[in-house]
């Protein structure tokens, strides 16, 4: 029997029981669509988080260790000399840039309100390495750092608390910190708590007018030349600082080195496992769908026992009957899979378009469809047709014509 004829018979069988066929397909549709949608969600989160973190992935953060090592030498602070040593190209060629920062809590006074902010002193590259953007005005520049200018850049929460929701109104306004007056030159975009409660100013300015502290810094951000040289740069940082601080035993280290790269890798790994797990849970509904197909095919074979007998009497071989029912279940599951793919991809695309309008947090969850999930889930639905149809089809093919003809 040729394929076209078999297809026609299968389609006629499915059409004859439209509602039943549609409901059976629904099981497969839901399974396939949810697998695609969930994988797309996981992939979307991973893509958007990676996009955000990628520019920061080559950053290494160095902070002083908290506390004393018992019996060890007293911990040394991180100082400007450490910063200069790290920036020395003759000591490491994997380090591209070094950005020192010092910070502390301080009361920031506007015209009528006060805000307890996290005041940070750093260089003009602080904005970039913190992956932040300006909402109004400009970040302070290199000249202002060199000249110890009394300028500040406000985090969005500080700006809106002191000067109202429009970031533009804060520009040029004076603020007082530690009885000193500073001019607001810029307001940063919101990045969520606690980053929005920050006030940034040039490092020399913060030292001279607010915290003092001489040449101490409490954070050094080291930028590796490339993302994949982060481990080498990390080793250089440890080597240079250990040498400067006369540390021979790693246990006595008085500083900590962290890189986003390794955290990003861990995050990606966890997210991949989570995505696979949720997809596996969704795949359970495919198993349920498969049982539905099996059930309906068994019903279909029983209902058409007599028809099978007739077909056998007029010359249908076992193979022809097997093909007829296999194709019927393949069409059932395959069509369900196809619609499921359309629904899954459709919902993902819809979600990707709608999610950003709910704000930046939701934009992170904008689904991104992956081709393997589409191909795999469709292939699984075809496999369901083959497996769930195989047993009933085989039963039909093995029916003895005289028994089948006698069946009422």
């Amino acid at each position, binding site marked *: 029997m040729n394929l076209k004829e078999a297809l026609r018979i299968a389609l*006629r069988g499915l059409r004859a029981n439209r509602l039943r066929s549609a409901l059976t397909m629904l099981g497969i549709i839901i399974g396939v669509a949810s697998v695609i949608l969930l994988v797309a969600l996981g992939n979307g989160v991973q893509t958007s988080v990676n996009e955000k973190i990628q520019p920061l992935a080559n950053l290494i953060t160095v902070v002083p260790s908290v506390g004393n090592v018992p019996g060890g030498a007293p911990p040394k602070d991180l100082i400007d000399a450490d910063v200069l040593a790290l920036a020395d190209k003759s000591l490491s060629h994997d380090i591209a840039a070094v950005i020192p920062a010092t910070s502390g809590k301080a009361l920031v006074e506007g015209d009528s309100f006060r805000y307890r902010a996290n005041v940070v002193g750093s260089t003009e590259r602080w904005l970039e390495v913190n992956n932040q953007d300006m909402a109004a005005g400009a970040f302070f520049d290199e000249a202002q750092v060199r000249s110890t200018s009394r300028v500040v850049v406000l985090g969005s929460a500080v700006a809106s608390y002191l000067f109202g929701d429009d970031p533009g109104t804060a520009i040029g306004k004076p603020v007082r910190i530690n009885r000193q007056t500073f001019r607001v030159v810029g307001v940063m975009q919101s990045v969520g708590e606690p980053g929005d409660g920050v006030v940034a100013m040039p490092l020399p300015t913060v030292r001279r007018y607010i915290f003092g502290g001489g040449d101490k810094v409490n954070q050094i951000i080291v930028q590796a030349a490339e993302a994949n040289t982060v481990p080498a740069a990390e080793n250089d940082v440890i080597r240079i600082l250990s040498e400067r601080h006369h540390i021979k035993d790693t246990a006595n280290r008085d500083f900590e080195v962290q890189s986003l790269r390794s955290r990003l890798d861990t995050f990606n790994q966890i997210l991949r496992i989570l995505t696979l797990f949720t997809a596996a849970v969704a795949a359970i509904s495919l198993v349920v769908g498969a049982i539905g197909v099996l059930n309906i095919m068994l019903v279909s074979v029983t209902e058409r026992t007599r*028809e099978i007998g007739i*077909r*056998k009497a*007029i*010359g*249908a071989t076992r193979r022809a009957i097997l093909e007829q029912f296999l194709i019927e279940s393949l069409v059932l599951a395959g069509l369900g899979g196809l619609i499921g793919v359309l629904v899954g991809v459709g919902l993902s695309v819809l979600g990707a378009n709608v999610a950003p309008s709910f704000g930046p947090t939701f934009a992170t969850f904008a689904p991104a469809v992956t081709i393997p999930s589409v191909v795999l889930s469709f292939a699984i639905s075809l496999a369901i047709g083959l497996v769930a149809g195989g047993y009933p089809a085989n039963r039909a093919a093995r029916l003895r*014509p005289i028994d089948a003809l006698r069946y009422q």
Partner: protein
Amino acid sequence: MIQLENVTKVYRMGKVEVRALESVDLTIDDGELVAIMGPSGSGKTTLMNILGCLDVPTSGRYLLDGTDVSRLSDNRLAKIRSRKIGFVFQSFNLVARTSAVRNVELPLVYAGVRARRNPARVALEQVGLGDRQRHLPNELSGGQQQRVAIARALINDPALLLADEPTGNLDTASSAEILKLLGALNDAGRTVVIITHEEDVSRFARRVVRMRDGRIVSDQAQRSRTEVSA
């Protein structure tokens, strides 16, 4: 043409053995019109199943067109049915929701014939249903359905036409039409075997084989078959 030698068929119903056929010998020549008669339980349906290659004998030989078909596999039997045998059943047994012309085409589908539509149309015209090709079985009268079934049985040009109570579900007029059609086919040289328990039908055959308890009890030739009055 058809040669049954010492054919016995035993069914097992649980622990009970039913001897449906007991050492049956029967020869039917080309072009014969034979009625097989007997009350229910006489084994005539079993005989027809074996003649139609729907079932195989427990012992004995069945030669169809010189081929021993009594020991063939399922698949080979299907091929034999496809090529050599046409069935007409009491309950017509058309495939539901399938137009008359598609029903007639079906044996060609299973025989692997590509050009099907035209032969099917011609066959329907021959049984007088040229204008009912697109009708579904439930849109046809009993007599019409049986004629579609006859067209379907003939489409592969079988050596043997087997009719199992072909008029059992029909009124007198339709029965007469169907018998007339079968008679005409026989006149044209087709071998026809009719299984029946109606004397009227058997009178119409040239030879009547009577069965009882799985055995052939009489086998008589009739000089000339009575014409059926329509």
